[in-house]
């Protein structure tokens, strides 16, 4: 089984659109929506839910007001500023990282820990293969752990169904959720756009891929918006040995199909489908060549 993760650095470049099109063109595949802080893939692929389960990923401290005598030892030791020095002392749950130090130093044993529900993880069926996603509980912060679990469930589904490719729709940025969706992947597809921000963020996400030793290829979306920047992107990629495997021009047709909640292939003009087909072919070559 191979895993490809779709990333971008900058948000809104078209990760989910490209992921949906690739699912249509490379089906059957296993799909994992790992942009758990802003998941959108289900809006295009409309999975029929099969099962779901609650996932706990965080631990939070709570101070027993009956036992607390306000000595302040917890506040002194907390590195996250999560102890509110009121009477009685309280824990700011959003700042608490569940490390346990307050419980360790409390002389009155007044601190207890609880695990709130962090996310609802679901598996479902789409016309292009099984899909895994998650709905983050409002206020849950530990999205990296949820990403790891979504990927694990997707890999299990691939084993169960005998499918050879997992496509992971990742999140923008370079931090925890991105690292969790990239580690151990076979290929990173970076979807970028020719804007100054896109160019700047492409540089950073390529460094992250290199840092974690994952091969990256690039797709330039909305490639005709600022042709000079697209040219600069191509040149920078060539200079660093990164392949630009496809370019998708801006198309009203794609915007319209997204607004109707439909995946691109079959809902956009033939000439706009063509670069998606080429991209799918390039991925097949790279994923296939790695087998055996």
């Amino acid at each position, binding site marked *: 089984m191979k895993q490809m993760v779709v990333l971008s650095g900058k948000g809104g470049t078209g990760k989910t659109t490209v992921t949906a099109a690739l699912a249509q063109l490379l089906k059957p595949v296993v799909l994992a929506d790992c942009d758990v802080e802003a998941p*959108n893939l289900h809006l295009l692929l409309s999975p029929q839910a099969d099962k779901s389960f609650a996932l706990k990923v965080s631990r939070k401290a709570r101070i027993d007001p009956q036992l607390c005598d306000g000595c302040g030892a917890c506040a002194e030791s907390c590195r996250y*500023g999560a102890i509110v020095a009121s009477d009685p002392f309280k824990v700011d749950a959003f700042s608490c990282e569940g490390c346990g*130090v307050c419980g360790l130093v409390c002389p009155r044993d007044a601190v207890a820990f609880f695990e709130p529900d962090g996310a609802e993880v679901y598996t479902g069926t789409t016309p292009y293969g099984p899909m895994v996603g998650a709905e983050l509980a409002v206020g849950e912060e530990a999205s990296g752990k949820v990403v790891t679990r979504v990927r694990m469930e997707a890999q299990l589904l691939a084993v169960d169904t005998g499918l050879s490719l997992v496509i992971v729709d990742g999140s923008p940025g370079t931090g*925890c959720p991105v690292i969790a969706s990239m580690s151990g992947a076979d290929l990173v597809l970076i979807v970028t756009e020719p804007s100054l921000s896109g160019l700047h963020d492409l540089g950073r996400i390529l*460094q992250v891929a290199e840092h974690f030793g994952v091969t990256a290829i690039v797709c330039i979306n909305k490639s005709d918006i600022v042709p000079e920047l697209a040219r600069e992107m191509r040149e920078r990629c060539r200079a660093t040995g990164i392949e630009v495997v496809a370019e998708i021009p801006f198309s009203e047709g794609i915007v319209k199909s997204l607004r109707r909640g439909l995946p691109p292939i079959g809902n956009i003009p033939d000439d706009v489908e063509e670069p998606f087909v080429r991209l799918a072919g390039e991925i097949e070559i790279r994923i296939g060549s790695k087998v055996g």
Partner: protein
Amino acid sequence: MITVAAGKGGTGKTLVAVNLALSLQRAGIETLLVDADVEEPNDHLFVKPAISQREEVSISVPRIDEALCNRCGECSSFCAYGALATTHDRVLLFDDLCHGCGGCTLVCPTKAITEEERVIGVIERGHTAGGAGFMQGTLEIGEPKASPIISAMKGRLDPGAVNVVDCGPGTGCAAMTTVQGSDICLMVTEPTPFGLHDLLMAVKMAEVLGVPSLVVVNKDVPGDTEVRRFCAEHGLDIALSIPFSMETARLTSSGMNLVDSSDEWRRLFYSLYERIAPMARSGGGLP
């Protein structure tokens, strides 16, 4: 403190934050533009600031003195993040998993653990060409945790200025750390099912933090009723609409600002500020 957030990436947070800050500065209002999207900071591309101060942000991570360690396993069993593992002949530390809580140092009975600083990013401060204050944080490549940098930046807000904070995408740790304590959140959305889905997630996140939200619709389409119906249904006010045009897309892609392109835009962003000013001056989020 005005925070510009969205949930979904690429809706135009940077566009709104930068243009709002520039219109304030041009109206003679003391302004600090803060780029808290530390994973992909882009405001600098639009305001081309002169940076005068640069400081590193670090977290404390443990170092184990193998001569003193008796491999009792207290540290690894205490660690809530799985960052330490005790084997028969040594204790292994997984740097990337460490949150720097200091618990292992406290529990070690042989005082074999000391702490050292690991740099995870930088904060840079300076001014825009027009004289607005500027601050940005940048997370080191390969570092997972953005929130310590964001927290450090929030400790450096300007109490005498209107602080306009550009928040990263998402609704998790980084976004929550940014939004917490804000007076108001401008939520930038786009009229697509994606934009609206993520708008709702972001508004709910702000709500649990006790921060009120106002909506800015970017890439707006004339005659589109969906986004307005959605906002009405969820009790959200739309404070500004920025229509879609290829011209705007090209302008912003090339690093230019709407407020530089016409007086009309400067007026619109300033009236956006006037609308939220009563809420934005309470000093929330300030140290």
